[in-house]
């Protein structure tokens, strides 16, 4: 059964009761939440996720609830907890959906060390996967959002999961998080996606989440060997530039973007070395979305 098969009342009953159990990528989540915005967020942005039985193993037991007491009325806040642990300070209640998404990111990054976790989008087409690591402002998520509406499959928007067991990138197709000007750029680019509610005034600015397409969530393969490593750099007014990157430099850049490299230690170093050894690596500077899409097609269809 999928989350979209649950009617509104059933969804709320699960969320406010023992928890809504569902799968996202390789992870199983139990989410308890009485906040209406969370229920709307899950219904709208995780419709293609498979629900899980009560006896299923759960990776992350998550609760998001409103802070009690006077806070309920005066500047209401939401608090995120994972197995009873509260890793963050409460956020304004209006940012409840963002608190859930960021909290789930934290759960994955802080405890899923069977993967080297790289801050990166991953997209795939015709069996060719592209890893797009990016620091804030690089345009990674904007480019990813556009690519998945031009025939590419979303493997991941926020984190590439490189498996220690098989050396493959595993899919975790969660909602794409877009910020500030990127929201309007993608809305002008495509009418297709389903959007969550606008979350204003977060520490990252205004945010909207875009639903991952059904084809990304439910169709195989769920793991793939990547072929390209492309470091995107958005720069207003620049000329498009595709520069082959040495494997040494690519390794260093990849390590800088790996959340748990220090935890994996020498194993992480060997994983990065093996991965980069098999990839074509590029630095890619672009001035706008059209040039960005053309550049990715150029990289993946022929030698730039």
């Amino acid at each position, binding site marked *: 059964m999928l989350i979209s098969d649950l009617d509104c009342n059933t969804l709320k009953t699960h969320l406010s009761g023992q928890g809504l159990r569902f799968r996202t990528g390789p992870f199983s989540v139990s989410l308890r939440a009485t906040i209406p915005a969370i229920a709307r967020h899950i219904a709208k942005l995780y419709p293609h996720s498979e629900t899980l039985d009560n006896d299923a193993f759960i990776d992350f037991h998550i609760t998001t609830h409103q802070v009690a007491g006077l806070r309920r009325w005066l500047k209401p806040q939401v608090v995120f907890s994972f197995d009873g642990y509260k890793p963050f300070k409460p956020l304004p209640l209006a940012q409840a959906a963002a608190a859930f998404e960021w909290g789930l990111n934290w759960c994955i990054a802080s405890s899923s060390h069977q993967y080297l976790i790289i801050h990166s989008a991953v997209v795939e087409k015709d069996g060719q996967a592209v890893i797009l690591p990016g620091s804030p402002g690089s345009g990674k998520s904007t480019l990813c959002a556009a690519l998945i509406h031009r025939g590419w499959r979303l493997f991941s928007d926020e984190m590439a999961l490189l498996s220690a067991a098989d050396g493959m990138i595993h899919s975790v197709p969660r909602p794409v998080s877009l910020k500030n000007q990127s929201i309007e750029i993608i809305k002008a680019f495509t009418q297709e996606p389903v959007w969550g509610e606008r979350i204003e005034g977060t520490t990252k600015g205004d945010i909207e989440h875009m639903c991952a397409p059904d084809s990304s969530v439910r169709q195989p393969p769920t793991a793939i060997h990547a072929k390209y490593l492309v470091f995107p750099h958005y720069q207003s007014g620049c000329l498009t530039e595709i520069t082959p990157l040495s494997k*040494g430099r690519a390794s260093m850049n990849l390590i800088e973007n790996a959340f748990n490299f220090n935890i994996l230690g020498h194993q992480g170093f060997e994983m990065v070395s093996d991965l980069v050894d098999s990839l074509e690596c590029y630095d890619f500077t672009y001035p706008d979305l059209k040039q960005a899409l053309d550049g990715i097609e150029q990289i993946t269809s022929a030698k730039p």
Partner: protein
Amino acid sequence: MPSLLAFQFWDDECVVYNRLSGDTHLLPALHAEILQLITEGIRGDNLIARLIAEHAISHDEATELTSSLYKSYKSLGLVDSSWN
């Protein structure tokens, strides 16, 4: 016991991983090769002789290069304090 350092060579570059500190370093391949020789215990005049034989550089160049690299590697915690 595994070596303190792990080396991954690609063409004219090498990425070195320090198991003790968790740091990674991107080095020119020749410089990494010298580091590898030092960690294997080849030091001082033996190291200079090896470089002259394998890389067609002069005695003065090899002396200057190894001396300067040794200081850098020592400050980065990649080699211990004994040189000769």
